[in-house]
């Protein structure tokens, strides 16, 4: 037994530290998860111990595990404990853990406010630094509001180390609590001229960041920044400022003109690539915003382009990439300057780095002209063949299409060439962009009438060779082009040379393996083709041909009638019936062709994609009004089966297909074999064929040879796009010659496809005329379509809230919240209230709900709200709170959700009902100049320390300065004074108070015995300074250390609580309160709030509560209520303390 105990303590001595944990994880590679779960169990044990060193070690390990992806949110409270350690070693670990693990929804963050405030004002700069760093990671709107004032004060700290951090963190505070921006801005602006360069650059940093998001509010700072820019030698500061100017110039064009010169100077002189890059970017941005009215800027652009060329030519991939990136920005406004570097860009297409190739591709988009389009696309097509990865190839494909189709096919002179490019692209294996090619084919065929005959011929060939496209299931994406091919052949069937052949191709059994929507188009267009064929055949004397065609349809269509796809099925059965009827008529020798074609008469015009949206709503039509009475809720359920029905998936076609009965299959197989035998062109399966197509059970017997497509597909009759390049060249030469001739004859004959007039410079772009009379049909738009609208700013952008006018003078209402005694503040007039309200609503328009709530909370704490608002808010808060409570109970964290500490911070959190707001700040002393309220809290870490937070409020119109706080020490309690000062010296209050301002200072006292309350006499001396005079004043006060102030809200588990009571070490005492007229939970809230207890458990009208003194005394309460009588049974290991605490509780309730 004894051995066991010894062993246990040795184990504890050798608790795993972080290194052991890391080593352990590395040694348990196989069963890492298991090992870590045992480690977590150990950590949980360690966290239960009182020793803060052990806890800190455990938290450190948890931080590591968190990085490995383990959930450590359960230890959030322990992290807070370690954060509040007085030892820097542990505090540092606690803050690190918090900054890694906490996020806005971590609820214990609420508990940290006081601790962070304490650390911020710590005399040790590293405590402050660690708190600021941590805060930068987990600052919440609550924390930002509560600590804004403290951080603002730190911006004027004596140490640049702190000032720098405080300035930087202010930015995060602004984001979370936009109301702090206006009050803090003047000081932030001051920091632009801080003697320490680090602080200065931090301030530049923050202001530039703010200004970049909402430039218009910072225009007035432009001269200051201009001065900084021309004087600073710090590249970083320069980059920031330059970026800021980039944001300002669109608002103030004059600034742009002024900027160009210093920027070009920098570009010439700097050796730092990052600065050069920034300057070039800004010059581009400035020039874009100035696009007109700058006479001299072509020189600047030229300079930029030259510098970028140097970057692109550099061997460093990074510079190359950035150079191309910046080049593409210039391209948008000054394409000509970039186009002269085409050689370089094309060279980059061969770069080994894919990301660079992609950038170069982007640039190509803007470099094409009528003259070079074919050449560039030819080059790209070569790349398509070479490309290894499908992603890059797909990218190439889309780029080719983008380049060709840009600005309404502006650069395409020969659409035959384009169609053949598209056809060539269809042999891309595994591309995802089949639909893109398809839509291009459709678009061109519909809109360029002259090309239809050619397009139809190409599409017919495609349809004929459809098996090549659909042969491999992996290439599914590409079969989309068949959709376009089928539609084009059907719609423009009058251009087909051999419509019957195409019709046959469209009705092949294999079509049934295509996706449903494509089959549907096949069926529909087969009908159109059928009409065309009939028309041709009926003209002949031989009527059997027409009847054979009908028979073909009747033979093949049943395959589609069986399709599982509804669309296919429906169209197929309609058309089948139609054809059967036609056949009947044909048998009676009736001429039907006219009537059949009439079914598909009329031209289809292209409609602009936006057309639907642009149809104006007729006057007097309310689209939101109900046409009928809205259906009742229950009816919607009836609709459900419908929805399921409509959700039919096209893929179902296959299983359905197999249902074709065996006989039929056998018959078909036989027929097919027969056909194959007779067909000399049929390619028989050979043993060497790489991959036999075997996917659809119904067609598994059809041997299809995989065709190796690395050899470019050359179908006879399908001209290769390359030919066109040559042809085009010849054509152009011829044209040029002709033109010259014409010019000689001085006969002006203007021809231009799109009505462009041009003076004939030698070989100018516009000299090139299209090969065909191209008639690009413009897309139809509805009449009186509205002009383009769109693009709003992102409503979720957090920076929107920071769009705040900074030049307006500060209003009283905008002061940063300082912890203050609420009762002391005067009520603001309702008019002012309304103003504040509306300002708050207008400025940060797009706030999330949470922030809004915070704001309300805050206002309430300042008592600027009308009572109506208040009730609403409190209700909301109550709900929230109850939710939290539930959650906490679930976790068995019975610490009165937040406890007293938090309620001090948030002020309103505790008043969960329309209950008068509570505050632990009580009046210390007051005269006509100044008012002091204070709150006394024990120090968790040090059993002999009490911290007194005093808020000083300047009540007069004069400036208060040189405040000195002094207390007459007693034997038991002493004010902590800095080393070297005498026992009667006062402490200087670290701030001055302008009129109407309040601020808080903290004083630490050491106490020996805490069992008795005591009072200390003290004096505050200060100088009241007027414009003309200054007087010395003093104010006496009595500091009352109640026993309650030695108690610290400490959560306690119910089982631990039970053990404590059972142990028998505690002495009991009880007290009865009569005439307490308040709900039980208010009563509990009051005890928690004013006396630092936490609720362990609550059952109906009975609750157990717990608290602990700074010296570790346990105080347990059992509170019962019946009617207006409340009885409190209490136990504590120190009877005197308990007696005093109970007296104080009694006092609290006798006052209300």
């Amino acid at each position, binding site marked *: 037994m004894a051995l066991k105990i010894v062993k246990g303590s040795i184990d504890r001595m050798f608790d795993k530290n*972080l290194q052991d944990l890391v080593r352990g994880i590395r040694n348990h590679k196989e069963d890492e998860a298991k090992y870590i779960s045992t480690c977590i169990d150990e950590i949980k044990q360690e966290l239960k111990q009182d020793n803060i060193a052990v806890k800190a070690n455990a938290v450190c390990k948890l931080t590591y595990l968190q990085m490995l992806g383990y959930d450590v949110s359960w230890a959030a409270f322990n992290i807070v404990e370690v954060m509040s350690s007085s030892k*820097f*070693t542990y505090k540092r670990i606690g803050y690190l853990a918090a900054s*890694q693990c906490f996020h806005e929804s971590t609820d214990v963050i609420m508990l940290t406010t006081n601790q962070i405030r304490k650390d911020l004002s710590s005399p040790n700069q590293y405590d402050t*630094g660690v708190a*600021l760093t941590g805060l930068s*990671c987990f600052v919440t709107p609550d924390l930002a509001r509560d600590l804004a004032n403290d951080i603002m004060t730190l911006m004027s700290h004596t140490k640049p180390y702190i000032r720098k951090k405080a300035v930087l963190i202010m930015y995060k505070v602004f984001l979370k609590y936009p109301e702090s921006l206006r009050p803090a801005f003047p000081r932030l602006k001051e920091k632009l001229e801080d003697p320490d360069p680090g602080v200065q650059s*931090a301030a530049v940093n923050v202001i530039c960041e703010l200004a970049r998001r909402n430039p218009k509010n910072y225009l007035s700072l432009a001269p200051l920044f201009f001065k900084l820019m021309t004087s600073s030698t710090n590249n970083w500061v320069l980059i920031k400022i330059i970026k800021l100017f980039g944001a300002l110039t669109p608002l103030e064009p004059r600034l742009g003109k002024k900027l160009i010169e210093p920027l070009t100077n920098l570009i010439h002189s700097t050796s*730092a690539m990052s600065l050069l890059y920034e300057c070039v970017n800004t010059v581009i941005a400035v020039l874009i915003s100035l696009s007109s009215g700058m006479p001299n800027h072509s020189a600047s652009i030229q300079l930029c382009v030259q510098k970028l060329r140097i970057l692109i030519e550099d061997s*460093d991939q990074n510079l190359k990439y950035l150079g191309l990136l910046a080049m593409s920005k210039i391209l948008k406004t000054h394409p000509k300057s970039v186009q002269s570097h085409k050689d370089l860009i094309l060279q980059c297409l061969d770069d080994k780095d894919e990301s660079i190739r992609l950038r170069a591709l982007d640039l190509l988009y803007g470099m094409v002209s009528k003259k070079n389009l074919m050449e560039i696309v030819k080059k790209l097509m070569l790349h398509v063949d070479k490309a290894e990865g499908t992603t890059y190839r797909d990218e190439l494909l889309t780029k080719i299409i983008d380049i060709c189709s840009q600005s309404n096919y502006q650069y395409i002179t020969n659409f035959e060439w384009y169609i053949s490019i598209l056809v060539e692209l269809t042999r891309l294996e595994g591309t995802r962009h089949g639909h893109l090619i398809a839509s291009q084919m459709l678009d061109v065929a519909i809109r360029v009438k002259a090309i239809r005959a050619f397009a139809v011929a190409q599409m017919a060939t495609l349809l004929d060779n459809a098996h090549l496209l659909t042969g491999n299931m992996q290439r599914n994406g590409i079969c989309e082009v068949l959709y376009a091919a089928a539609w084009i052949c059907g719609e423009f069937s009058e251009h087909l040379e051999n419509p019957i052949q195409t019709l046959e191709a469209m009705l092949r059994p294999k079509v049934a393996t295509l996706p449903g929507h494509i089959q549907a188009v096949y069926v529909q267009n087969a009908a159109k083709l059928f009409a065309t064929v009939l028309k041709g055949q009926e003209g002949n004397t031989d009527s059997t041909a027409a009847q054979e065609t009908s028979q073909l349809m009747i033979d093949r269509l049943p395959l589609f009638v069986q399709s599982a796809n509804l669309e296919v099925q429906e169209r197929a059965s309609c058309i089948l019936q139609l054809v059967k009827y036609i056949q009947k008529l044909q048998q009676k020798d009736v001429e039907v062709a006219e009537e059949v074609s009439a079914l598909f008469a009329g031209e289809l015009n292209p409609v602009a994609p936006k057309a639907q949206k642009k149809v104006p709503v007729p006057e007097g039509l309310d689209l939101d009004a109900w046409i009928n009475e809205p259906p009742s809720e229950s009816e919607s359920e009836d609709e459900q089966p419908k929805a399921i029905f409509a959700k039919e998936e096209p893929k179902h076609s296959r299983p359905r297909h197999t249902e074709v009965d065996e006989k039929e299959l056998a018959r078909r197989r036989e027929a097919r074999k027969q056909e194959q035998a007779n067909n000399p062109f049929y390619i028989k399966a050979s043993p060497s064929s790489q991959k036999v197509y075997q996917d659809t059970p119904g067609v598994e017997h059809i041997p299809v040879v995989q065709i190796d497509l690395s050899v470019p597909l050359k179908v006879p009759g399908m001209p290769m796009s390359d030919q066109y390049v040559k042809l085009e060249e010849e054509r152009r030469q011829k044209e040029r010659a002709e033109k010259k001739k014409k010019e000689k004859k001085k006969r002006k004959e203007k021809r231009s496809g799109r009505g462009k007039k041009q003076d004939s410079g030698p070989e100018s772009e516009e000299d090139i005329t299209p090969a065909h009379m191209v008639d690009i049909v413009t897309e139809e738009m509805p009449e009186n379509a509205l002009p383009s609208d769109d693009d709003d700013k992102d409503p979720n952008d957090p920076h929107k809230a920071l769009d705040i006018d900074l030049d307006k003078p500060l209003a009283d209402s905008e002061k940063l919240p300082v912890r203050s005694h609420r009762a002391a503040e005067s009520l603001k007039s309702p008019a002012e209230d309304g103003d504040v309200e509306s300002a708050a609503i207008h400025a940060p328009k797009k706030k999330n709900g949470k922030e809004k709530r915070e704001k309300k909370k805050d206002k309430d704490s300042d008592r600027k709200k009308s009572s109506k608002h208040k009730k609403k808010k409190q209700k909301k808060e109550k709900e929230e709170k109850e939710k939290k409570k539930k959650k906490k109970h679930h976790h068995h964290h019975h610490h009165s959700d937040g406890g007293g500490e938090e309620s001090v911070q948030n002020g309103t959190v505790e008043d969960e009902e329309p209950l008068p707001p509570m505050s632990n700040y009580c009046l210390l002393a007051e005269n006509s100049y100044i008012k002091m309220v204070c709150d006394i809290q024990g120090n968790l870490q040090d059993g002999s320390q009490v911290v007194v937070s005093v808020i000083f409020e300047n009540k007069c119109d004069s400036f208060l300065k040189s405040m000195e706080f002094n207390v007459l020490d007693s034997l038991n309690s002493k004010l902590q004074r800095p080393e070297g000062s005498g026992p009667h010296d006062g402490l200087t209050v670290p701030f001055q108070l302008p009129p109407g301002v309040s601020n808080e200072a903290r004083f630490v006292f050491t106490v020996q015995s805490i069992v008795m309350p005591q009072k200390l006499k003290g004096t505050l001396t200060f100088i009241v300074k007027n414009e003309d005079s200054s007087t010395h004043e003093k104010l006496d006060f009595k500091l009352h250390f109640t026993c309650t102030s030695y108690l610290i809200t400490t959560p306690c588990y119910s089982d631990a609580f039970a053990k404590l009571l059972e142990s028998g070490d505690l002495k009991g005492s009880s007290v009865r309160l009569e005439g307490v007229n308040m709900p039980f939970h208010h009563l509990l809230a009051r005890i928690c709030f004013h006396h630092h207890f936490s609720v362990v458990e609550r059952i109906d009208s009975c609750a157990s509560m717990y608290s602990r003194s700074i010296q570790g005394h346990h105080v347990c309460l059992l509170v019962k209520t019946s009617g207006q009588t409340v009885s409190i049974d209490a136990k504590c290991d120190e009877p005197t303390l308990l007696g005093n605490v109970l007296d104080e509780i009694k006092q609290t309730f006798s006052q209300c």
Partner: protein
Amino acid sequence: MALCLSLIPDSRQHVHRFTTNCLLRCMQFMLLFSRQGKLRLQKWYVPLSDKEKKKITRELVQTVLARKPKMCSFLEWRDLKIVYKRYASLYFCCAIEDQDNELITLEIIHRYVELLDKYFGSVCELDIIFNFEKAYFILDEFVLGGEAQETSKKNVLKAIEQADLLQEVRH
């Protein structure tokens, strides 16, 4: 040891040395991970849920590791720009916003590696694994809330040393 980070990252890529010190702009997050895809350090300067962080990390590690060695250090990812650099077996990876300067971010990464190197004395991956809290402390002294706060390497190291000293004394 094989894991040693060579400070001359890649002879092909020349490191841009500036005459004066440079700082970076707002960074969204920084990740350090090994060639095997193991996360060694993560610092988030934007509030995200654990789930999102994990998702982003997984995606980015995959993307960056899939890049070929000769590729440039930048990539566009979602609406962010990713700047990464490999030092021996470790990848240092930062996310910045669209308008931010990539070169400065590279400089920051390099500066951080130099700081680690100075502090640990020719740093290697194991140093960072076993003293990961120190690696964080150094980063926190150097970058605050996504903005570089200290231009001078000396000052950063001084602050760290003094804080460490404080730790020893108080122990």
